């Protein structure tokens, strides 16, 4: 109970892992490409949560990696958000092109390299 009421880095990691798993399940099982892309966003967010939690952890640690300037995790999460934006733009662009040609958004119907 004590560990429940005292929020440590591990709590955030477990939450991140749970979100990651949800994202993985979504990517592997859904047919709708849009929802698959959203699941990928979930995965990226889970990673971000871990990074920021670790950044907080290292800020409280002494030593070379620790200290007030230990914001590398946050910087990384910003890069990941940038990547997510790029991924969403290109992914949705492909989706539009695909939908225009096949009139479907089901991922298991994307079985040809060319049409």
């Amino acid at each position, binding site marked *: 109970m004590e560990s429940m009421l005292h929020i440590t880095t591990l709590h955030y990691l477990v939450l991140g892992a749970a979100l990651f798993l949800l994202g993985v399940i979504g990517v592997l099982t859904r047919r709708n490409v849009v929802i698959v892309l959203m699941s990928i966003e979930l995965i990226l967010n889970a990673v971000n949560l871990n990074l920021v939690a670790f950044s907080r952890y290292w800020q409280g640690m002494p030593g070379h990696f620790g200290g007030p300037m230990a914001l590398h995790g946050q910087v990384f999460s910003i890069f990941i958000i940038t990547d997510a934006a790029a991924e969403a733009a290109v992914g949705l662009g492909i989706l*539009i092109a695909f*939908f*225009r040609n096949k*009139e479907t958004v089901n991922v298991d119907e994307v079985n040809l390299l060319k049409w």
Partner: protein
Amino acid sequence: MTDPNTLSPLDLDTPDKTFLDANELVINMGPQHPATHGVLRVILRLDGEKVMGLECVIGYLHRGVEKIAENRTYTMFNPYVDRMDYVAAVSNGLGYCEAVEKLLNVEAPARAQYIRVILTELNRIASHQLWLGTHALDIGAITPLFYTFRDREEILKIFEKYCGARLTTHAFRIGGLQYESYDGFEKDVRNFVNFVKPKIDEYEELLTTNRIWLERTKGVGVISGPDAIALGVTGPVLRASGVKWDIRKALPYANYKNFDFEIPTGQSGDTYDRYLVRMVEMRQSLRIVEQAVEGIPEGPIMAKVPKVIKPAVGEIYHSIEAPKGELGYFIVSDGSTQPYRIRVRPPSFVNLQALDVMCRGQLVADVIAVIGTLDIVLGEVDR
């Protein structure tokens, strides 16, 4: 999404392959829509915001005016014509009275002619003011509406003083006028001319050089002169396309040949040119009114017309330049007191046909601007 082809009988020359075919949108604009000026229904086929084609559905205001005429005497039918283009009732009355006079071979006396011209031209100004206000409102400028209505009120006051009605005036009678002009009529008209001249400048100040107005109207709803002629378009819409055709000059009726005025024309035939043409027309109408009020002769106001009007067997077509274009009356008489058939050529109805040509390839917002610039009145379209 419904298949657009089953929804409406749109006959379109194959448009280019659209961006997302599955999402071609069919929008039903009207009959209850704030910008269709009454009960016009427009079925729009859109690709995104681009208009691929449209179809007008009319008839929601059909009252069978032409059929009613067959059961009324010539005199009794006179008030009905006011209800067609109800914002330019005086012009309708003038057209009808002159047509019947032509059929009877009588001519209204000179004094009546002058008063008729004054009232008709005032009505032209009122009609254009109403058009300007609503057109600007459609494009998003709300203020001109109130300015034009404030000034149109002065014209309606003159009408009210003259014949007791403001909108459906029934001002003219077959063979001349029923009422002599009231005391101070000339003064009122002169005052009005002086009052409204700076007001027209005021409208122009708000709109003519407004950047947004220019962007919204220039190059929008273009129709070329030959196209306009082919579609039978008349009035300011035709003149803005560069065709100098005004029945007041081309086939003078009433006593318009006595007056000195100019026919404004545009070049490009877009919405902005139509706006400019109508603005100049308002000023020209003021010129005519000024000349007419100076030159009103004394004399009778009613020609000798029999009590019971029974024209000889025959037919007649007479047209005048209504504010919206050529307003024609085709009357067939079988010698009885009632017309055998009356057919009206309403300018709005004919001009409305040009809507499709003018809107293709434009955006939805332009459709609104073009409907506004055509200056249609549904009472006249549907009759």
